[in-house]
């Protein structure tokens, strides 16, 4: 009964083709000689060369990296501490907060985007802070990245064997030393995969950036969007292919990382 028949196998392969068709299409078109139209006229790598001479694309790439790196750094720090705290200590309102933390995972990104835009607008009126631009984008990205890091780290903390920490305490280590020398190295893989997740999410985001950016701070997705609205140029396909490659590498890293750790974890406990 638990066997894959030919029908199930065929349908499943078609489904895989369906979800990969768009990605493959963009990559294929990035090597297409034709500048306009849907036809294939020959193989070329000139759009990649054109991309690296495109000042706007390079500037946007720089902005995207600044945004992804800085938001990941802040979100990983705060998210790790949050995950540790949530798994170890009790405080009033903890259940409510744990629930609140799941909102960014499921809320449509347009809701997060406009609520932040509105919030920045109100604060700007009253305090003159949060001029739209790179800084507001970073704050926005940190906000949706923190929960992801915290949830991964919390899961890792819950999976830890408490007797290891108890042993450290029995040997005279104080709370801080136990955390830094015993707990932190053990949860480090979780912290790193949380950071990779946060970084990937920052690269993937378009809607939140689009609504919370200001003049001069264009990211790659925003650049792609405006090109799509004007009509796609082939070098945008080249750019998109490179971004797809980056996401795939990051995702595979997270997966390999997670699986290795799971195997090691099951050996320890």
């Amino acid at each position: 009964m638990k066997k894959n028949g030919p029908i199930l196998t065929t349908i499943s392969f078609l489904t895989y083709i369906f979800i990969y068709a768009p990605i493959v299409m963009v990559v294929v078109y990035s090597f297409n000689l034709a500048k306009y139209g849907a036809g294939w006229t020959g193989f070329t790598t000139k759009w990649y060369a054109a991309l690296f001479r495109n000042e706007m694309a390079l500037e946007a790439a720089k902005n995207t990296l600044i945004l992804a790196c800085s938001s990941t750094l802040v979100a990983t720090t705060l998210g790790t501490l949050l995950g540790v705290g949530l798994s170890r200590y009790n405080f009033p309102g903890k259940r409510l907060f744990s629930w609140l933390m799941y909102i960014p995972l499921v809320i449509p990104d347009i809701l997060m985007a406009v609520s932040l835009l509105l919030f920045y607008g109100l604060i700007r009126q009253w305090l003159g802070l949060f001029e739209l631009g790179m800084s507001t984008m970073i704050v926005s990205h940190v906000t949706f990245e923190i929960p992801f890091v915290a949830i991964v780290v919390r899961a890792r903390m819950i999976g830890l064997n408490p007797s290891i920490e108890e042993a450290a305490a029995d040997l005279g280590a104080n709370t801080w030393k136990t955390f830094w020398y015993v707990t932190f190295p053990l949860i480090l893989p979780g912290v790193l995969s949380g950071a990779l997740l946060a970084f990937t999410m920052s690269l993937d985001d378009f809607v939140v950036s689009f609504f919370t950016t200001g003049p001069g701070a264009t990211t790659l997705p925003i650049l792609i969007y405006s090109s799509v609205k004007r009509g796609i140029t082939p070098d945008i396909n080249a750019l998109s292919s490179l971004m797809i490659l980056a996401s795939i590498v990051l995702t595979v890293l997270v997966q390999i990382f997670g699986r290795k750790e799971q195997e090691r974890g099951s050996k320890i406990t």
Partner: protein
Amino acid sequence: MSAETIKKRRDLILSSLTSGPGIVWVCLFLLVPLISVMAISFLTRGEYGDIEWTFTFDNYKRFFGYGIFGFDPLYPIIIVRSFILAAGTAALCVLAALPLAFFISFLPPRYKGIALTLVIIPFWTNLLIRTYAWQILLAPGSILSNLVHFIGIVPEDVPALPSAGAVYAGMVCDFLPYMVLPLYTSIEKIDWKIAEAAMDLGGNGRRVFRHAVLPQIMPGLVAGIILVFIPALGQYVIPDLLGGAKTVMLGNAIGQQFGASRDWPFGSAIAFFAMGIVMMGLWLYARVARKHGEEALL
């Protein structure tokens, strides 16, 4: 001081040292903005697109069709359409995810991980890129657009893009992992002895599936439907790039008010409505998850 009070106090101090900054950040930049949306939705738009501090229900009245000149169905239509598109997406995702989830679950253990990773990878690539790729795929004269005309899914004289069909294609392509993952988890837990017993008792394939398998995967199915429905309802990019005026959804209506129309109070009213639906969905999901002891999806 009793030992318990000391423990409580210690917990509170260590909590604020560890979780404190994260909690403050999330409350300040997630909770407060969401509350501001709620508050602003009851205010008035000023002449120059600013916000006037006059309390009103007008934004909601307008949203539900009570315009200045009588009934105006513009926004009620958008509400209904969004629900239909989101529900349709969820239904199509069920149809596509069921065979795939069973297929992955029946694979030999060492291929399962790879097959699952293959489902997840597109999900982590940029949605904007995957969406405009459908523009290429469905461009006039492309193989796929000729195919849909040939089969007759789309009539000859109607372009394949922009269309509701294109929006569905983009949506299902994007949200499929949300359905496959919980379904797969449920399928892995199936007690096949029940299905075998049903077979032995003479049930045919369909009846065995209906009465012995389906009830066992119901929690995954419900979780998947909710997880697809919620983000689909507020999708912005896909209807924007693949649809036209006839596929404007709640997300696009919100974006419009916060962008070109610059009517933040009205945009907030739509956003607050959408948020209410999201919260209801989340609450339902939490109930299903708790009842069946499922892990939250990540």
